[in-house]
């Protein structure tokens, strides 16, 4: 069952989550677990609209008008953002999706790449060295 409350506003899960937009590509870092993310397709505009305060329902309504075939995938993507603790519900009233942003839905289906190669740094001593064969980070040797 979906965890999304379509009529609620959502916000970035700060201060643990930080994100930056690069001309339609969004890079997100979760400082609490070390995972980082790359959003592609219409994932970036969905993300941008959510953290600007637009409700999932407003996003779905806009997609229904312009790209109805992407609505289900958009809902799954928002579910994933909640599961990954990248967004959380906000208490302030959400705003409606402005019509002017409707043309953002011109991309492919939402994609999220998840990278966890640095996650170990969060749970152990920072481990600083590499072994090209083993990859990174390398485990600490026994003391």
């Amino acid at each position, binding site marked *: 069952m979906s965890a999304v409350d379509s009529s609620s506003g959502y916000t970035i899960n700060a201060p643990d989550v930080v994100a930056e937009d690069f001309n339609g590509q969004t890079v997100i870092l979760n400082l609490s677990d070390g995972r980082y993310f790359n959003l592609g397709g219409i994932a970036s505009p969905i993300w941008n609209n959510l953290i600007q305060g637009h409700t999932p329902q407003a996003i779905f309504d806009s997609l229904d008008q312009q790209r109805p075939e992407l609505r289900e995938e958009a809902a799954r993507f928002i579910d994933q953002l909640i599961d990954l603790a990248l967004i959380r519900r906000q208490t302030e009233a959400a705003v409606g999706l402005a019509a002017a942003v409707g043309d953002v839905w011109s991309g492919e289906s939402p994609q999220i790449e998840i990278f966890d190669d*640095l996650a170990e740094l969060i749970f152990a001593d920072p481990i*600083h060295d590499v072994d090209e064969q083993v990859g990174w980070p390398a485990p600490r*040797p026994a003391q």
Partner: protein
Amino acid sequence: MIPPASLAVTPNGLAAYAQDRLSAAHTFPRYGLIRRDFRLARLDMTVWFTSGQLAELCEAMLVQHGSEKSFAAAAEIFAMDAHADGWDMPARWDEGAGFSSREFERILTADGKRGFYHHDAPSWQFYDPSAGIGVHTLPTPLDIPPWERGSPLRLFVHWAQAAAGNRLTHAATLGLNGRGALMVGASGSGKSGTTLAGLLNGLQSVGDDYVVVEQGANVVANSIFRVFKQDRDGLRRVGVDTAQLSDATLNWHGKVEFDAAKLAPQAFVDRMEIRALLLPRISRARRTQIEPATSGEAALALAPSAVLQLPGDSSEGFRFFTSLAKRLPAFHVQLSEDGVEISDVIGSFLEREAIHSR
């Protein structure tokens, strides 16, 4: 000697322990300490040591920028070990409380401090950025984390630079005539080997692992540590016999550490204007290829690794590195296996990039 269980530090007691150690260091009688003044990149750092051994290690590893005028940023650090009369054994973390480095950071940041705990020693590093004072409390003089043997005072440099708006950055560098590129990416992507090949074939570098980056009118990278690292195979690939490296040592991970300035005296420079980000990849291509990358790709290669490598100031670090990725053109570099060819291709690229961005 193991401290009594009553001295185990819990999350609730962490901020108080940090303040206690900072205050104890600051009021410790100076006559028993060894003072060293380091003129680091954009930072004057005075360090008081209880041990001559650690002072010597810092002098050997840190690059001093002696020709510069006095810097605006300053820090005073106390490197204290329990062999010194009057300095307590470092407490242990209360293992029953679990340990999360993010939670550790959150507690100290809320109290205006920065810190790091090394479980094995145990040892602690605390820094108060508003006062510019830090303490490294150790059981014995050289009980620093093994990965910091080649980069002593690394975290204090990081915290002091962050407070000054600069960043200690996990990146390698190559340049030509004082202008160059930062090489970023996961360890194992070929940064160090490419830097070494470049150093030996006419290019310059300010570091192969950590550099201090400033973002002013120009982006500038500064040298901070003089030791480069490479495994024996990597050295062999670029034609260096370890016997040539008279001062080389093996680090905790079995890599050879050597003084870059001794290997290539003209090539290891203090400062370099940065014109591009390079994202190297060991692809064993027949010829080294350089192709444009997006700023998002550059941010993915640079920001998470650079932020998570160093504790504290994480959100600010993310903003710093994503800003850098937006500001500089980025390029993928598919590396061949020929160090001379790699250096030629990157050298030609840097020449073109310097001209185009003039």
